């Protein structure tokens, strides 16, 4: 298998432009971080009514990507979707990177991030956020263990061959040297066990994440049993979308295999997105038909006003209609590139979904006229992210891209050697 760099297919000017954008993104993040460290949350636009803004929306976006990508890696081991086995390493690294990005965003959102240890030291067992602290940690351990088991045989083989950064591989393989069939079979047994545990923990993580919002009876739009389910379904769509895109642009799989995987993932993505749209449709129907004031105001804030563009443009247009069109249209459904684009659009659309879930629900204050009770920006109704919030968010996205690029370059993620295994050879 020639180790030709896949990205070399992308024209050089485009590649340079992408790198320049990513450097700018990191610089933007650094500027935002500097402002955050210097002035704390002073320049944030969140308020008494909207205590959770863009960073929290992006936190659940990245957590959804992480969980979704992880769930996709468990499909071969648990549900026999062997076809997806070659993208396991890529999906796991993506999952880990997204988990890290989610953690960074939540750290930025905290008033005293250095006291996060208090969640463990002085845990409040009735708080879904405290449960999240435990589950998040277990989830991280499971992903890292999974990644170790998936990458270990390849890294050990590369060390023996003397190809790639052998010192790094030796370190990451924890000095393991075995590549015999028994050790690989042992890894697979563990992978199956971890997959079972992983699915349980991931569902709990997502359920818990949803519960953080769902138990807040102060916010009728969040409150109720549907929210955790929407978070779970949306995470599956996230995983499908991101992996469709990443598989299309980055793996060095044989063209036929690659197309098969990308197509499977793209169909998976639009199926889940369709389910999500059905739920959204029933919610919209009951809200506007029933006309309960608070629900109605929240949905109005979601579909009209400043967040209307997010809803119709990102969530529905770019995030659902276009990917659906690309996956169904005869002209594009066999093209890895077009399907990859569908995946990319799906990811962008899911940013809109997360914003719709988190922000508009808070735009309706807990009392009518509350915004006039005290003249200050923190009491004013409405919310749009500040420059600082955008800067940090852009920085986190750029950091994620750099981390993934580094992982592609340094780790044996191509999975092409797994194609034979996935065919049961």
């Amino acid at each position, binding site marked *: 298998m020639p180790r030709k760099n896949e990205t070399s297919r992308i024209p050089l000017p485009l590649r340079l432009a992408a790198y320049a954008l990513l450097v700018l993104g990191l610089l933007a993040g650094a500027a935002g971080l500097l402002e955050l460290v210097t002035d704390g949350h002073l320049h944030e636009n969140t308020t008494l009514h909207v205590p959770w803004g863009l960073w929290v929306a992006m936190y659940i976006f990245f957590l959804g990507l992480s969980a979704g990508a992880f769930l996709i890696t468990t499909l071969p081991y648990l549900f026999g979707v062997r076809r997806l086995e070659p993208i396991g390493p890529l999906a796991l690294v993506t999952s880990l990177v997204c988990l890290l990005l989610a953690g960074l965003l939540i750290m930025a*959102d905290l008033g005293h991030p250095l006291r996060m240890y208090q969640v463990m030291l002085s845990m409040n067992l009735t708080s879904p956020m405290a449960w999240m602290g435990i589950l998040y940690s277990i989830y991280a351990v499971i992903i890292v263990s999974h990644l170790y088991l998936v990458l270990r045989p390849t890294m050990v083989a590369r060390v023996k061959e003397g190809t790639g950064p052998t010192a790094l591989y030796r370190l990451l393989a924890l000095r393991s040297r075995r590549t015999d069939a028994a050790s690989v079979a042992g890894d697979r047994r563990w992978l199956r066990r971890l997959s079972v545990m992983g699915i349980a923990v991931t569902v709990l993580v997502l359920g818990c994440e949803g519960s953080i919002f769902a138990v807040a009876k102060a916010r009728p739009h969040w409150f109720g049993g549907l929210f955790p389910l929407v978070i779970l379904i949306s995470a599956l769509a996230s995983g499908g979308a991101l992996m469709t895109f990443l598989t299309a642009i980055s793996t060095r799989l044989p063209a036929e295999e690659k197309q098969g995987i990308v197509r499977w993932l793209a169909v998976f993505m639009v199926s889940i997105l369709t389910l999500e749209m059905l739920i959204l449709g029933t919610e919209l129907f009951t809200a506007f038909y029933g006309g309960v004031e608070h629900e109605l105001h929240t949905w109005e804030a979601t579909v009209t006003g400043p967040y209307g563009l997010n809803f119709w443009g990102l969530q529905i247009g770019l995030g659902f209609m276009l990917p659906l069109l690309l996956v169904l249209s005869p002209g594009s459904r066999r093209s890895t590139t077009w399907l990859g684009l569908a995946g990319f659009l799906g990811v962008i659309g899911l940013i809109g979904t997360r914003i719709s879930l988190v922000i508009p629900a808070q735009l309706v204050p807990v009392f009518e006229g509350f915004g006039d009770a005290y003249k200050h920006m*923190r009491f004013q109704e409405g919310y749009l992210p500040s420059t600082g919030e955008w800067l940090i968010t852009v920085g986190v996205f750029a950091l994620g891209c750099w981390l993934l690029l580094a992982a592609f370059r340094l780790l044996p993620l191509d999975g092409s050697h797994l194609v034979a295994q996935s065919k049961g050879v």
Partner: protein
Amino acid sequence: MKMKLTRRNFLKGSGAACLTAAASTLPGCSGVGGSEEASDTRWGMIIDPRRCVGCRACTVACKAENHTPPGVAYNVVLEEERGSFPHVTRSYLTRPCMQCARSSCTLVCPTKATYKRSDGITVIDYDKCIGCRYCIAACPYGARCFDYGHNYLAELTPPEKQPSPEYGENRQRAKGVSPMGNVRKCTFCLHRLAKGLNPACAETCIGHAIHFGNLADPQGRCLIHGESLQELLVSRSSSRLKEELGNEPSVYYLD
């Protein structure tokens, strides 16, 4: 007249006794983890919106007492205008923390930084609060504020340089130091209660619209104006905000 006189005489004695009793049951308040009330105390307020003139003295008194920065107000007055000219009315609603018996904020706080004292007051341990703002999202009454670090002027004014007496901790607000970056809330002026004084908002109210006292005591009287609290509640119909949520606030509003 006779009744008034009797009442006044009674209040002279019992009001003072109540204050003394309150003071004696609050022996020092050296921080939120300090001594608490006996469990037969449930501090609460009975607010008479008909007496409220919308002057917002309660908001100002609270801010002055607790040295709260811009954007942080523990007690605000909500305003509602109803009807159309010439049949128009405007009503005001003073909204301190409801000190709910079944508080949403304490339930969701991940670090137990906010918790209920046995006297019914919900407090915050600033050193445990990580500033996640979950309690703000969960509070149905909007009674919590995040200290974003605003100051009134670029150069700190003399009152801002003084430490806040909140929780008897005398913290000096400074960049990156609690309570900056923390969630803050009304404590019924716990530090004043510890000295046998009443909450600043209730004490200041020019219309005598805010009654304050021990709601758990069947004989409990307003520590400021002397009325029987239970009598106030039964003689006029009263309600609590968003009763349907089941938070059981300790603040009642007379109709």
